[in-house]
C-alpha cells in the first residue's frame, strides 16, 4: 500500500525531529541524510556542523566523507579541527548530536569499535571518531539506525560512546551534564527513553509495522510507552526532497565507468 521505503520512513521521521533553531553535529550516512532533509524541508535555517571544521554548511548533495569540499564551500566559516572539538563541541555550543551505531543497547550506549574482544576482535569496526565526546558534550543525542538483532543487543561488546549507562543517575555520576540519547528513530518505529528507567521504549510505530516485527528485530525485551501512536507517513514534499537529494548525491559520487580509477 505504501509508496515509500522503510529507509525513507526512517529518514523523514528523523528529519522531522530537528528544529529550525537547532545547531546540529552531523555524522556521515543516515544522520547526514536526515539533517540535510530537515534543512531542505521544514528547517531551512538549521545549523549543520561537520567535525572537519565546517560550521553552518549547506551542501546540495550528501557528502561521502565528513570533509567533502562542498561542506567547506557552503559553510559560514571553517575552523581547524582542534578548534572544532575544543571551542565548539567541548564549549557546549551544539544543541543536538546525531549518531549511528553498529551495536546499541536499551540505554542508548553505542558500540562502533569492535565486535568480539577488543584485543582479538571478530570484526574490527572503524572506531569512535568524534562520537565519544559528541555523546557527552552535545545538548542531547538523536540516534538513527536500522533495527536488527545484530545491532539491537542486550549487551554491547564495547562502550564506544556513553548513552544512559546502566540506568538513571549514571551520566550524572560520571560528571556528564547533558541529556544524552533522547530519541531513537529506526526503520520500524520511534523510541524515547523512559523518564524513570532511562530505557528506550517504543512511543510510535511506523504505518504497517507490527509489534511482532519490532520484537523480532530487537535483542532485548521491548517495552512500550503508555501511549503508542502511529508515526505519520512521509508527505509528498518530504519524499520529493529526499529523493531529489539522493539522486543528486548518487550522480555526484558515481564510481568511474572503468570501475578502477587511476592512483
Amino acid at each position: 500500500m505504501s509508496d515509500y521505503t522503510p529507509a525513507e520512513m526512517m529518514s523523514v521521521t528523523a528529519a522531522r525531529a530537528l528544529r529550525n533553531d537547532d545547531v546540529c553535529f552531523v555524522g556521515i550516512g543516515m544522520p547526514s541524510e536526515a539533517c540535510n532533509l530537515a534543512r531542505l524541508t521544514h528547517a531551512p535555517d538549521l545549523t549543520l556542523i561537520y567535525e572537519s571544521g565546517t560550521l553552518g554548511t549547506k551542501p546540495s548533495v550528501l557528502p561521502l566523507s565528513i570533509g567533502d569540499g562542498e561542506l567547506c564551500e557552503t559553510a559560514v566559516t571553517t575552523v581547524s579541527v582542534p578548534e572544532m572539538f575544543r571551542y565548539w563541541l567541548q564549549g557546549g555550543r551544539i544543541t543536538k548530536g546525531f549518531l549511528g551505531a553498529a551495536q546499541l543497547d536499551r540505554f542508548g550506549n553505542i558500540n562502533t569499535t569492535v565486535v568480539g574482544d577488543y584485543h582479538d576482535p571478530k570484526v574490527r569496526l572503524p572506531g569512535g571518531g568524534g562520537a565519544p565526546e559528541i555523546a557527552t558534550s552535545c545538548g542531547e543525542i538523536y540516534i538513527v539506525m536500522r533495527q536488527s538483532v545484530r545491532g539491537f543487543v542486550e549487551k554491547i561488546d564495547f562502550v564506544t560512546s556513553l548513552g544512559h549507562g546502566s540506568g538513571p543517575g549514571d551520566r550524572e555520576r560520571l560528571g556528564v551534564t547533558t541529556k544524552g540519547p533522547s530519541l531513537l528513530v529506526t526503520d520500524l518505529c520511534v523510541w524515547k527513553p523512559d523518564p524513570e528507567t532511562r530505557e528506550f521504549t517504543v512511543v510510535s510505530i511506523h504505518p504497517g509495522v507490527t509489534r511482532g516485527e519490532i520484537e523480532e528485530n530487537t535483542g532485548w525485551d521491548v517495552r512500550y510507552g503508555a501511549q503508542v501512536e502511529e508515526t505519520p507517513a512521509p508527505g509528498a514534499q518530504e519524499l520529493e526532497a529526499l529523493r531529489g537529494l539522493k539522486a543528486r548525491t548518487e550522480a555526484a559520487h558515481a564510481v568511474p565507468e572503468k570501475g578502477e580509477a587511476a592512483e
Partner: protein
Amino acid sequence: MAEFLSLSEAVEGALADGDTVAMEGFTHLIPHAAGHEVIRQGRRDLTLVRMTPDIVYDQLIGMGCARRCVFSWGGNPGVGSLHRFRDAVQNGWPGPLEIEEHSHAAMANAYDAGAAGLPFALFRGYRGAELPKVNPAIKFITCPYTGEELACVPAIRADVAIVHAQKANRDGDVLFEGIVGVQKEAVLGAKRSVITVEEVVDDFGAVGPNAVILPKWTVGAIAAVPGGAHPSYAHGYYARDNGFYKAWDKISRERDTFESWIKQHVLAGGPEDFAKHAAAA
C-alpha cells in the same frame, strides 16, 4: 628552514625506519603522493599517526611499512572498512600491527599540545567510554581549581610530519586553505617535516590577513607535486575523487588485487603521475 627538494629527496632526507610519522590532512589535503613515495622507499617499522588512517595508511599498512598505528577513526569514509587496516588488526597480515586508539577530540587536542610544546593535552572527554580501559595512554587528572576530573593524553610530537598544501612561495612559506584540519599543529609539533604543494608561486596574491600560513622557518622540505593529494582533494584545485574512494573498497578487499594495484600504480609509478588529477579539474 624551508628547502625545495624533489619528493624522493625530501622523503629520503626526513624519514628513517622506525620513525614516528604523522601524515595529516582531515579528509582534505591528504598527502597521498608522499605516502606512495614512502612505500617505494621501502620504509619499515614506522609508527603511523593519523586521526583517520584513510586510504593513505591502508596502503602503507598493506605494504608492511608500519609496526604501529595511532588513530581515532579507521574507516573508508562513507564507504565502509579499510580492508588492509582490518586485515592487519584481525589477521596480522602482512605483519602484526599494534594499535593505539583514541577519539578525535583526544587526537585533535594532542596535536594542539604538540604544537604548544606541552607534554600532554587536557580536555573534557572519554566520560563513560571504554577506550581508557584498553589504551593506557589515556589518563585522568583533577582540575586544581574546580576539582573537575578531566581526560589527558600525551602530546603528539612526531619525528616527521608529512602534509600537503595548496601553495608555497619562493621563500618557502606555505599556505593552507579550506578544511585545514590539524596540519599546522602536526608540522609545528614534529621534529622534521615534508610538505608537498600543488604549486610554487612568486606571491600568494590576495589572501586574508588571517590565512593559515606556516612561515618558512617552521617548515622543512617542500616538494611541488601537483595533484599530490588525490584521491583526497585540494580546495581550489580539484575535488575529492569520491568514485575512487568507492572503487578502493573492491581494490583493497583481497590481498592479491591490492598488491597488483600497488605494483602498477605505486611501485612502477612516480609523483609525476599525480599531475593528471590536478589537470583534470
